[in-house]
């Protein structure tokens, strides 16, 4: 890149300073939160010496622990189901023309663009009507809880997973799949040994996104949750409304740590799969470790 394009002189100094300020804005609040979660003072703005007391409180707090487990169960369950459904949907949309494709495409985008509040209202009214109906027809007395939260999380996660997987499929040539089929691989084998190894990074990325979204959601969950079970963010949201306490600081820092681990994982996946050239092919070759005969031929096709 030519040096004239680079900002110079005062412009450069101003831009650099501005960037540092933006990073300060991004990270200062998080930093303060982390530091004060270790402060031995009931007043959250004053440093009272180092302590792990608040983290101990978190571990011993029964309701918080329950909420953590509800969150984890909902996140895992909704991620697994939405990864399967979302990947199938992505394959259908990227690889096939079928009747109702356009309607499906639009329906799949809606959960992404719809405001949280609107979707929350939808879930509230739906479960209220749905449970009334079940009660009237089958005499089932159901309540909102783990099930309704999971159902609502899957409803938005399918879309996010399918967008990520579709992006991966769109950037991938169909030539390899066609070659596999020409070489008499069955459709299942083609998917298993050619398509799937190539979309693994997309599927993993989608899964991590789904996990993050599920663990973060407050608004929709609040309306889909019942007296039976609430997730950690919803419970913490309730606590925050009553005031700021060191216990919330500690809980927040732990939630932060969970997010950062998920980001690190997804970046690692991108690194693994996105290093220039056509690394997906290398990944595909590595993934096909003990291939049957037809797939050896596919492998040779890839190698060329």
């Amino acid at each position, binding site marked *: 890149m030519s040096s004239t394009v680079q900002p110079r002189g005062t412009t450069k100094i*101003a831009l650099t300073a501005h960037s540092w300020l933006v990073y300060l804005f991004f990270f200062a609040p998080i930093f303060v939160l982390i530091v004060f979660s270790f402060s031995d003072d009931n007043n959250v703005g004053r440093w009272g010496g180092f302590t792990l007391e608040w983290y101990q409180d978190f571990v011993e707090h029964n309701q918080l622990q329950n909420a953590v487990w509800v969150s984890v169960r909902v996140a895992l369950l909704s991620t697994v189901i939405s990864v399967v459904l979302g990947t199938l949907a992505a394959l259908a949309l990227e690889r096939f023309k079928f009747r*109702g494709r356009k309607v499906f495409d639009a329906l799949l985008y809606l*959960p992404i*663009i719809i*405001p949280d509040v609107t979707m929350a209202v939808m*879930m509230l009214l739906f479960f209220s009507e749905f449970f009334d109906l079940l009660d009237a027809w089958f005499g089932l007395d159901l309540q909102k809880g783990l099930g309704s939260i999971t159902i609502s999380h899957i*409803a938005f996660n399918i879309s996010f997973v399918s967008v990520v997987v579709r992006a991966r499929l769109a950037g991938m040539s169909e030539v390899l799949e066609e070659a596999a089929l020409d070489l008499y691989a069955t459709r299942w084998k083609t998917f298993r040994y050619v398509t799937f190894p190539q979309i693994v990074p997309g599927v993993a990325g989608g899964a991590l996104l789904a996990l993050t979204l599920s663990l973060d959601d407050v608004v929709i969950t609040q309306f889909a949750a019942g007296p039976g079970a609430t997730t950690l963010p919803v419970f913490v949201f309730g606590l925050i409304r009553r005031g*700021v306490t060191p216990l919330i600081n500690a809980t927040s820092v732990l939630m932060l740590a969970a997010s950062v681990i998920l980001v690190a994982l997804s970046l690692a996946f991108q690194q693994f799969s996105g290093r220039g050239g056509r690394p997906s092919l290398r990944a595909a070759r590595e993934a096909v470790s003990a291939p049957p005969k037809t797939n050896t031929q596919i492998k040779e096709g890839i190698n060329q």
Partner: protein
Amino acid sequence: MTMVADRPEGLEEASVATPEFEKAAERAASRRGFLLSLPAYAYLVLFFAVPLGIVMMYSFATRNRFGGTDLSGWNLNAYRKLGEPIVRDILFRSLWLAILTTLICLVVAYPFAYFIATRTPLIRNLMLVFVMIPFWTNFLVRNYAWRVLLGNDGLFTNISEALGLGERELLFTTSAVVIGLVYGFLPFMVLPLYASIERIDLSLVEASRDLYASGFQTFRRVLLPLSMPGVIAGSILVFVPSLGAYVTPEILGGAKTTLLGSYIVTQFLTARNWPVGASLSFVLMAVMLVATLVYFRTGGRNL
């Protein structure tokens, strides 16, 4: 699409692509595609489209004396209520705050995104990772962090007192809400802006400077028009969630700063006027749909 791939049963031996063969292949592909999409399709119809229909039904319904909702006898009363001063004020306030948030994000993010785009690849990636981290971390926690900072015994107040600026109370004001919204959605502005600036052939900037354009003229006539897709995409990505924000105003705002999101939730949880809440959430969704159409039209999808 995948003609070769879609070899229908019974036609495996066909060596010439006759019209019948092609038609059968198309039908088979159509069936396969439909079957693959079926689980997600059915799920979204049952748990998304049907709930959406129910909300629409409720928005045309009437609230009865007991706080319940009569679904018979559809009318537009709930939508008429949106013209009332209280609701109108809330609508305008939400709109104003969303626009303000978008503008602040734009002004802050543009030079930042430009700076990132002109770095070497290594530094560029590093800088982007540090934008992604707040982008991915828990939204609730990020808002809570500001509550801790701005609170009456928080660091911000302590510093402003120490500097002799007096006890400045920012929490529960409109400013606090805007700070929270900018903080929450700034990455949504930075990333599309970066993507569109990075794509610009920067020798054009050089050419403009060579032809004696001032820095501002270069920005105004070269850089800005070329990065317009990013500006529009980023603005929509910030504006849309700001308008429907619920968590941020609840945590950082006060009674005087009720916004659309909180008002809708109140209609369901405490005021028990479901038709009004449903009609408002429908209006909110309509705004988002329009914004999304603009986003796709202007090529935001390609960023």
